[in-house]
């Protein structure tokens, strides 16, 4: 502490303790990336909250068209939900392997996660194509407009998550598990688990409650 700067006091008395510029024991995040990314996720959460509110308001306005009970295929949604949940835990395993500095295992689990995410996306696109083919496209009723907007926005997030994931796999292949890549994988971990969290709201609020009489 000998190099600690202490301003001369007018009283000529030496201060009993060296000056400290932060509260002792306080956690002081020097690297704010994860916090910043968390704030982004929270703002994304607000976007979804608005879309959920829109669906909550319009979700029963069928305009004499098909209702959720007519359209939704719950077994398909159950498969979709399991795919996304499985991809969450496989991403968790990728993070555990990253901590052990095993590049191969990390890449393997990331690939599995990406495939599960792609499977989820494929099923969702199949469902959308099926709905549009049946004449239940987004222009059919307010219910379907809000449905496509909410579920489509989630699907778009998953799409960009997969793009990010593939980018990270290339990055890890090229540069290894360097600090920057670890940080990015941490952010993607938050993003991916957050998408699964939003999906819990989607399958409950949209699909399950949509088929209730």
């Amino acid at each position, binding site marked *: 502490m000998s190099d600690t700067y202490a301003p001369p006091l007018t009283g000529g008395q030496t201060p009993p303790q060296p000056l400290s510029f932060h509260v002792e024991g306080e956690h002081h995040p020097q*690297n704010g990336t994860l916090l910043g990314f968390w704030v982004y996720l929270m703002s994304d959460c607000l976007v979804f909250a608005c879309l959920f*509110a829109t669906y909550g308001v319009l979700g029963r306005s069928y305009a004499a068209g098909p209702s959720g009970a007519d359209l939704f295929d719950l077994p398909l949604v159950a498969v979709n939900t399991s795919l996304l949940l499985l991809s969450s835990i496989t991403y968790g395993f990728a993070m555990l392997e990253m901590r052990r500095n095993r590049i191969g295992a990390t890449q393997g689990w990331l690939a599995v996660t990406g495939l599960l995410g792609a499977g989820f996306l494929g099923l969702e696109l199949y469902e959308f194509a099926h709905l549009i083919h049946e004449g239940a496209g987004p222009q059919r009723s307010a219910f379907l407009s809000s449905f496509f907007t909410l579920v489509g926005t989630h699907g778009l997030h998953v799409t960009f998550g997969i793009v990010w994931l593939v980018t990270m796999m290339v990055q890890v292949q090229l540069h290894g598990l360097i600090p920057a890549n670890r940080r990015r994988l941490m952010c993607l971990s938050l993003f991916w688990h957050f998408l699964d969290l939003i999906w819990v709201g989607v399958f409950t609020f949209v699909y399950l409650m949509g088929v209730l009489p």
Partner: protein
Amino acid sequence: MTVRTDHMANLSQAHGMQHAADHGHGGHGGHDGHGEDDGPHGTFKGYVTGFVLAAILTAIPFWLVMNRVFDSSRVTALVILAFAVVQIVVHIVYFLHLDAKSESGWNMLALIFTLVLVVITLSGSIWIMYHLNSNMMPASIHDMRNMP
């Protein structure tokens, strides 16, 4: 400087050495000596616990709806919403590893603020629009007959 000595102490800890060096982190006492430098840590057991809980909390609502366990839609809706809230908490704890300590509590603060806004947005929109709908002009003669 105080910060530098803390940093050196951090580095000298046997575990987390790599991570502390990676991020140049210092200046915190550490409530458990590690965990902050490389973000929140998960364990294999934690992930599996979260996965099993989430799977159970997903299966029950699907079962409730697909087999029409309750006669009343309202009861079913309330029960599956409760399951969703519990599952979201499970995801936050076991997958996102959020607790009051992460990032000095700023994560939790942001989450609470967001939750307040989400609750206001959702309940406010649905509440207002429901009353607006029921106070609107009836859309058809049929509705007019059913007016209170």
